[in-house]
Structure formats: C-alpha cells, structure tokens
C-alpha cells in the first residue's frame, strides 16, 4: 500500500516536503483543479523540484454531473494536457450535488441514487470520454438514509461505465454512524478498487450529532478498526491510500496518523483467506 497526502494549497508545501523527506508518504494527491492557472511547464518544474514523487489527481470542482458541455470541454482539454504530462497514479472526481435550482450548495448534497442513476451514468461516460481516462469516483459521507443505496449504486456504475471508485473509508464510517449503512455493504467496492482515501471527521454542533467529514483531526478509532479489520481487502498491487487533511495542520498529529496507516499496511506474510474471513466476521 502506498501512503499519500493531499495537497490543495501552496501553504502546506513545506509540510508535504517534510513528510516526503522523512519517508512518511510515497506520493502526493494534487487537488489538480486548484492549479489549472499555473502554466503547465511551471507546474511540472515545481513538482519535479519540490515533490519528486508520483502524483494522484483529485478533481474537486468539475461538477461534471451539472456543468454545461462547453465548460467541460475546456476543463478536459487542460486536464488532459496535465494527465499526459504528469501521468498521475489515478484521476478522481466526485459524485455529489454542487447546486440546486442554480443555487450553489456550500455543503455538497448527496445525489438521489435511484432517480439520478441514468443521468449520472451518462455524465460519467461523457466525462471519461472527454478526459480519455478511467475515473475513480469518491463515495459521499452520507447523513440521510439515502446512503443505504450508495454501495449498490457504485457497483452498478462501475459495471456500466468502467469507472472505478475512490473509496473513502472514513466517509463510509460517517455513513455507517449517521444512517447505519453497514461497512460490509462496501466489501465488493473495496475489493474492486486500488484507490482509497481516509481522514478525520468531527461531530455537528447541534444534537442529534451528525458525523461530518471535516478533514481536521486525527483518524477515529472506528476508521482505524475498519482499516485493520479489512486490511487485506484494501491492500493489493498498485494500491494507494491518501490521508486527507484540510484544516488544523498539527504536524505531530498528522505524522502519528501516517505512522498508524503505515503500520496497518506494513507488508507481512499472511494467509489471505484468513484475512478475508476475519474481515467478514468482525464487521
């Protein structure tokens, strides 16, 4: 398992460099659409000069399910240039609602997995065509009961479009805690993808507490237990696990989490069948 760290803004470059120098991370996940105005030559030079490791591309604001075709063409042209040049380990994007009735949602909303399926499927086909690239789509940290439909939705979407899932383990834990989606429901998705996310989450201010995907604190014990239990299902050739942090950049805290992840996924000789049975039994 390669362990990575997300890079979204210039401010965190010194932190990312220290994590790399200490061997705590193996790659950097770029929130690539934050850097589209950086001239491509400069972007390549800066990456080569500062990070010197492979990159993953995480697309945040393509809004590919909602955005008009001309804007997607323009975005895809620029992203393709960077994909060709930087050869990322994966290219990922989000399945969520960014707007409603033309109004921008600042806390992204979850799609309706049943009634939105056909449109999302067409949009995924179109976006993969435009990018000339298989996309890995990230699962949403469900709050409401619609989250129960998510695992089957992703399995169907993968079958129909050839996309992959960027499976965010802590988002699945959020959905489990908020609306009871069993972690076992994701086993097929986890087994079928090599690309993962994980991050800390926090509780809503008001009660009943919602578990919110805040990326601002240490990994929870529930997330760690999930990763440990299903370690062998996550780990596979070419697998990546990006640790996301977007606020409260406490370096000791981050280092401790990265070390915990490294320990979980440390190579070991293991009977894979035994690991699989343990995963099923303890969920």
């Amino acid at each position: 398992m390669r362990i990575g760290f997300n890079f979204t803004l210039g401010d965190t470059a010194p932190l990312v460099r220290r994590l790399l120098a200490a061997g705590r991370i193996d790659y950097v996940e770029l929130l690539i659409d934050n850097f589209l105005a950086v001239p491509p030559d400069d972007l390549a030079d800066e990456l080569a000069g500062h990070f010197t490791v492979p990159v993953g591309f995480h697309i945040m604001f393509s809004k590919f399910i909602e955005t008009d075709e001309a804007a997607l063409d323009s975005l895809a042209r620029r992203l393709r240039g960077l994909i060709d040049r930087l050869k990322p380990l994966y290219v990922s994007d989000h399945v969520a609602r960014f707007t409603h009735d033309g109004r921008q949602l600042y806390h992204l909303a979850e799609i309706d997995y049943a009634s939105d399926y056909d449109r999302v499927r067409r949009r995924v086909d179109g976006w993969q065509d435009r990018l000339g690239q298989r996309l890995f789509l990230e699962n949403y940290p469900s709050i409401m009961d619609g989250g129960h439909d998510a695992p089957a939705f992703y399995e169907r979407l993968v079958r129909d479009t050839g996309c992959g899932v960027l499976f965010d383990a802590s988002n699945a834990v959020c959905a489990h805690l908020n609306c009871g989606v069993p972690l076992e429901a994701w086993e097929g998705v986890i087994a079928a993808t090599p690309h993962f996310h994980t991050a800390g989450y926090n509780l809503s201010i008001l009660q009943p507490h919602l578990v919110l995907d805040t990326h601002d604190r240490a990994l929870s014990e529930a997330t760690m237990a999930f990763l440990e239990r299903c370690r062998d299902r996550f780990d596979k050739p070419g697998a990546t696990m990006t640790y996301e942090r977007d606020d409260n950049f406490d370096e000791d805290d981050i280092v401790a989490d990265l070390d915990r992840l490294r320990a979980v996924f440390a190579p070991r000789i293991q009977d894979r069948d035994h690991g699989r049975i343990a995963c099923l039994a303890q969920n």
Partner: protein
Amino acid sequence: MAASLALPRIDADLLDALTVPARQGDYPRDSRAFVRIDTSLRIYWHTLFDICPGLLDLSGPDGLAIFRPFMAWAAAEKLSLNWTYYLWVDVWLAQSAFRDRVTPELRLSLMGASAARWATGDRSEAGGIALGCAGLPDLVCGWKTRSILSGRRIEQFTLEEPLPPPDGPFGFFTIAGDDLPDGFPGWTPIPR
C-alpha cells in the same frame, strides 16, 4: 410546520431548505434533517463573516441580523450564491436599515472577498477578474495562483483616469493573463 411535511428520507428531500434559514423550522428540532440544514447554513455564515468580520460591527456578534434577512432575500431573488455572494450582500445592505453604516472599507472588503472567491473557485481559462463598483473609484482584482507554492492574490488599483462606472451596482471583466489589460473591455453585469 413539522406535521405538514413528509419525513425526509434522503438528502435530496432537503435541497430546498439547505440555503433558507426559515425552512429549518419545518423539521423537528431533534431530527437529523434539522441538524443537516443547520450544518449547511453554518457554512454560508462562516463563508460570510469569517472573511468579512467587519459585518459583525453592524449586525452584532451572532451576525443573524444580517444573515437571516439576507438569506431570505437571496432565496426570494433566486441568487446563485456563487462568487458574487458578497457583492449581493453589499446590494442588500444598501437597501437595509444598515445602509448608513456601510463604510467604503467594508464595501472594499466585500469586493475583495468576491474577487478571492472567483480566483479560487472559477474553472474557466481566465487568469484574473476586475471588479468595479458604481460608488467607489478603485478597481479590485483577483488573480488565480500561478505557482503551486503560493495562492490567489487580491489587489486594489487606483487608476489615474477612473473607468466609467458600471450600469448596475457592480460590473466585472475577466482577464486572460495575470496583468491588467491596456484597454478597457467594458463592464459585464455581475451574475445573480
């Protein structure tokens, strides 16, 4: 009222309420839906007052004297709450009881906040944006980052020869590169 609405099952059932403070009261106080809407609204609150804390001098520390009526007005006007969020707050302030207390500094901070939001969120090929206002002579520009090691920049320009004022309260033009153009391309009205 809570009794008149079917209990929401999925997130999409709440879409109409995620931007409208008054709609929160449609759901029971101890429900996940109520807290979900609260969580959504808090982000709009922080996006406004964390970036322009000068607004709190007008509203009081909880901001609600501005936030609640503005969000209700924005919903009635179907405003997109995109990068122009702060500019429409300025438009609302000018017709509110706070209008005599809005200083040029506060207005410039709202323009800077909108320029910054454009510079971080816009995904078009433009590199910068210039904002002009009917009542202030200066231009406020936002520039997308040109290096992975830095971030967006906001600049205020005092021109030797001020540009003609936009027709509406604000106007903008986008800039391909990372410097003000020689000619004036004319104002585009800000999107709603």
